[in-house]
């Protein structure tokens, strides 16, 4: 560029700025005046050779009387757009009266008014009087106006003119000016809206899991949420813990001083503060490790002063609990402090856990309102573009105004620095990119380049099962130490969050909660993917107005998946019918299904459950395939995992979005193609196959199991129920089969499991404990449990009953499962007790007598039984009599004690007396005492 052109551009830019100011001032807006201070600073710095010129107003309110200062040359500037002598007068008066400003020997005015102005003699005299002896002020030189600035720039050297040219070009009056804020807000919101339209983001359904969202907040807005970390540390119960440790005679945990970091302001200092605080917490964690070896009722693993020994012995059970609480608390804080420091946040999680919802909700409700700069891209969209990733991003963001990604990153970093906030690039669903292995490399390169700019951060989400395999390179990259890898665990999803999630989904999909049984709802709460499928399968949303949702007493996974498939196919078929003119005679749905069958067929034949080559689908079916792809939830394009040499590097492949849904389809396919006369091909598929062969998943076995239980699949059931794969999943899947599809064979198998008296038996017993009697559950019921118990010894009793009622010892309290069972039973059943229908429950009570009992043979169940016996004596006598036929012995003293309390008829007394006399010799001391009591009581009552 020639010098003349540069000067011309400068003149244009200054003229443009001057014009804008005159318009804004006329309208009463003065915002640009503020910007002027920053915009003009570098221009004045170069023009008047003031290299240390700085904004005197940085960090708070207006500094009175001056805007820019150079402390090394003792020069101060007042910038004004008012062309009034009174403005100069007021400033001079204030300046000379201000002690702190006296160090500046020169005060210059930059009057950036629409037109130049001249000053009269009266004003000159007044100014001279004000400054006399205090400040050397020469209005001709010290009042700089627009024309003066243009003239002075013209007199500069070529390099300086070009420097000013470039500055102005990139400023808000130049051709290269980019309104970063407006572009970013627009980009992110557009993306969120797109996700809403495709149904991937359902506002109001997203439920915060405290840990993930809290970490995200810290990562995106470290300045603000560092304060919250400090608050949390100040609320820490460390003094309470230390008081307890001191009483125990244990060493104290080191204190943490968080308050000293309250005034941290700059991003660099913030990162350092977070690091220091993390170190202090790590020291606390290290000190607390000492308590890990403490065990209840055991000698301490370290010396305890004699004066504390008694307290220690009584409270040692609590030391480990306090240690765990302290460590969990410290781990939470450390994780948040990591979010302050790290620059790449990777959120992984299984399908259906709500990653997209989290990101969209976060951008929409957190980032945008906070004006946090960010840009939002999805893996799926990035997969549709060709060419360089960085190039695409900078073009997308700045519409070609930046020459390279680096230039864009620099602008973003500077913009973020001005705002004291990081700039966050969001890449959601990186695993959904169509060329994953290539993308993984590009991503690494892009992040590496961008992190050179201090304020840039990245926020990725990825399905956990793909992350290590396909994006593991990031964990080995040059920026590996900057990564914060977060996988929210399902168990962290508390009851409260689950309830909200269920409510949110039900509302959005218009599911009537009254039609879904309470137990079914509680089942759905624990399986997010199933919940989503369920809502899509049964909800009123998107259905005709006359749709009536059926009552849902139980959740049957296979049934939900079947309905989900039907609904997805309907949607794809509708799309096809709307857009295609000539439909095949079989109908759109049949055509779409045959595409699915083709893909599944390939998977089964080749034992390859992912990355099916695109070429497997014949060209004639491509149109249908695109309709299925359009649904996005059903099928997707992906790239073969790196290292798969059977595919060309650029080959397109097909995968199912949800692995569980794929398993369902494979099972469906296998059962449909099963021929009972030639079961060999099926057997070969289900069997483990050759060494090194891909094993079929647990999911396929489960769905095969469900399908085998359908009434019209009897032939298949006869064959499959004899296979080892059937037994492998029988427990617990049998309890998810519709009640009407169960049979006597199931009861036999379940009983066999109970008789094994192992961990599995405990689980099954637990399920049966909460199922009703035979009347409601013909095969797998409470009676089955009681019958199996009746034949068993004390060991079977321990495994099936006692292990299901073990009290849990927590930090602050202990749970009482038997007491809780009694509470629930008393509330839900006792008021409506029917002696015939509910007999198994009362019989169960005789088995539960010993739980949480005291030495006087009192227990929560015994107390409740007395109440029932008072109301229904015949029922009580019957179940007590039967309880004496049970083989195990642990409950017997309780039964004899309660029998002694009853008013029995003479026949029963005679019968029991014979039994009592026979048992007396072999009975335990406790039982013998109660038998004697019974004999004495019954003898007395007969007299």
């Amino acid at each position: 560029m020639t010098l003349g052109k540069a000067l011309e551009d400068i003149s244009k830019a200054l003229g443009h700025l001057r014009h804008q100011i005159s318009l804004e001032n006329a309208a009463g807006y003065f915002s640009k005046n503020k910007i002027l201070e920053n915009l003009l600073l570098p221009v004045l710095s170069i023009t008047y050779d003031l290299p240390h010129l700085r904004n005197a107003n940085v960090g708070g309110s207006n500094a009175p009387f001056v805007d820019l200062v150079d402390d090394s040359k003792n020069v101060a500037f007042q910038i004004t757009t008012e062309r009034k002598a009174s403005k100069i007068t007021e400033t001079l008066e204030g300046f000379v009266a201000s002690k702190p400003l006296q160090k500046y020997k020169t005060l210059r005015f930059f009057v950036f008014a629409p037109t130049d102005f001249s000053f009269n003699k009266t004003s000159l005299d007044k100014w001279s009087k004000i400054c006399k002896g205090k400040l050397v002020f020469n209005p001709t030189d010290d009042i700089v106006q627009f024309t003066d600035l243009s003239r002075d720039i013209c007199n500069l050297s070529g390099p300086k003119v070009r420097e000013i040219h470039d500055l102005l070009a990139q400023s808000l009056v130049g051709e290269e000016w980019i309104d970063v804020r407006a572009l970013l807000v627009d980009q992110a919101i557009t993306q969120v809206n797109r996700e809403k339209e495709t149904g991937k983001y359902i506002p109001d359904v997203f439920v915060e899991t405290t840990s993930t969202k809290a970490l995200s907040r810290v990562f995106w807005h470290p300045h603000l949420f560092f304060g919250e970390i400090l608050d949390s540390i100040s609320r820490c119960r460390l003094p309470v813990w230390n008081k307890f440790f001191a009483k125990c005679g244990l060493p104290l945990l080191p204190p943490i001083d968080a308050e000293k970091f309250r005034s941290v302001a700059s991003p660099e200092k913030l990162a350092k503060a977070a690091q220091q605080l993390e170190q202090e917490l790590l020291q606390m964690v290290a000190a607390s490790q000492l308590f890990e070896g403490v065990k209840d009722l055991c000698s301490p693993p370290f010396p305890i002063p004699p004066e504390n020994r008694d307290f220690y012995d009584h409270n040692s059970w609590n030391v480990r609990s306090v240690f765990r609480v302290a460590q969990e608390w410290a781990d939470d804080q450390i994780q948040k402090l990591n979010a302050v420091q790290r620059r790449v946040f990777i959120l992984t999680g299984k399908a259906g856990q709500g990653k997209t919802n989290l990101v969209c909700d976060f951008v929409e409700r957190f980032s945008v309102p906070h004006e946090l700069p960010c840009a939002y891209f999805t893996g799926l969209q990035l997969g549709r573009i060709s060419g360089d990733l960085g190039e695409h991003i900078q073009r997308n963001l700045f519409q070609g105004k930046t020459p390279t990604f680096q230039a864009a990153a620099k602008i973003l970093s500077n913009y973020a620095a001005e705002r004291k906030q990081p700039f966050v690039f969001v890449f959601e669903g990186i695993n959904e990119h169509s060329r994953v292995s290539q993308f993984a490399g590009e991503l690494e390169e892009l992040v590496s380049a961008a992190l050179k700019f201090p304020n840039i951060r990245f926020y990725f989400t990825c399905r956990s099962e793909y992350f290590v395999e396909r994006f593991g390179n990031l964990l080995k990259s040059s920026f590996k130490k900057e990564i914060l890898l977060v996988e929210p665990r399902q168990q962290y999803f508390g009851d409260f969050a689950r309830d909200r999630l269920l409510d949110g989904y039900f509302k959005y999909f218009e599911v009537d909660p009254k039609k879904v049984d309470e137990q079914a709802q509680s089942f759905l709460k624990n399986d997010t993917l199933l919940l989503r499928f369920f809502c899509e399968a049964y909800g009123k949303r998107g259905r005709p107005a006359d749709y009536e949702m059926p009552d849902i007493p139980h959740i049957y996974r296979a049934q939900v998946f079947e309905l989900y498939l039907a609904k997805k196919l309907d949607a794809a078929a509708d799309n096809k019918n709307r857009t295609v003119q000539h439909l095949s005679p079989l109908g759109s749905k049949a055509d779409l299904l045959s595409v699915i069958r083709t893909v599944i067929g390939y998977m089964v034949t080749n034992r390859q459950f992912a990355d099916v080559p695109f070429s497997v689908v014949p060209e004639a079916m491509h149109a249908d395939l695109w309709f299925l792809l359009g649904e996005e939830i059903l099928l997707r394009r992906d790239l073969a995992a790196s290292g798969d040499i059977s595919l060309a590097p650029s080959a397109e492949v097909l995968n199912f979005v949800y692995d569980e849904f794929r398993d369902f389809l494979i099972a469906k396919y296998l059962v449909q193609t099963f021929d009972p006369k030639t079961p060999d091909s099926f057997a070969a598929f289900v069997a483990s196959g050759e060494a090194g062969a891909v094993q079929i998943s647990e999911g396929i076995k489960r769905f095969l199991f469900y399908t085998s239980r359908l009434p019209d699949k009897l032939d298949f059931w006869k064959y499959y129920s004899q296979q080892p794969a059937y037994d492998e999943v029988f427990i617990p899947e049998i309890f998810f089969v519709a009640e009407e599809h169960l049979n006597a064979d199931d009861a036999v198998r379940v009983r066999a499991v109970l008789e094994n008296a192992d961990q599995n038996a405990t689980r099954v017993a637990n399920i049966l404990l909460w199922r009703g009697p035979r009347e409601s559950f013909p095969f797998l019921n409470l009676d089955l449990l009681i019958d199996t118990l009746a034949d068993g010894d004390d060991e079977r009793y321990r495994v099936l009953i006692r292990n299901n009622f073990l009290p849990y010892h927590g930090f602050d309290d202990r749970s009482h499962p038997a007491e809780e069972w009694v509470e629930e039973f008393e509330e839900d059943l006792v008021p409506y007790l029917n002696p015939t229908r509910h007999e198994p429950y009362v019989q169960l009570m005789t088995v539960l007598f010993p739980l949480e009992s005291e030495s006087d043979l009192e227990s929560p169940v015994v107390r409740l039984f007395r109440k029932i016996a008072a109301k229904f004596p015949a029922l009580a006598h019957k179940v007590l009599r039967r309880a004496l036929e049970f083989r195990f012995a642990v409950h017997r003293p309780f039964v004899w004690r309660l029998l002694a309390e009853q008013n029995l008829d003479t026949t029963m007394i005679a019968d029991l007396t014979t039994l009592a006399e026979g048992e007396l010799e072999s009975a335990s001391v406790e039982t013998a005492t109660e038998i004697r009591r019974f004999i004495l009581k019954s003898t007395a009552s007969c007299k």
Partner: protein
Amino acid sequence: MIYFTASNAVLAFLKSMPTREEFLRRAGVRENSYAGELVLKLYDDVFVYSKNLREEYRKYYKIEYPKFSDFADSVSSIPPSVLPKIDNYFKRYAFIIHFVVPYYLEENSGSETDTAAEILPVLLNTKLAK
């Protein structure tokens, strides 16, 4: 006003925060006694180791959640009966304290009365919501 939430926590709406001395006075116990120690322990649990949701909202969440009720609803299990009134309470009460019922106030199975429900209104000088 005091509300018990489903997660064994308490939401207390207070116009002012008592001093430790005031708290002891309300309990009618002396500072250097066993009862005094217990009451001060409760004071710490309620006012030192707890969260003032109002303050937390004002400092960190006001922009993210335009209404206090949205914030409160997202962070804790607010009883449905209080939710419609909570924005109004936010204007009226300077302290919205959220704390877990300390284990020593938990209802014992054998006890006829609910200790926390009996003690907290007296010590916090407010009513128990019905």
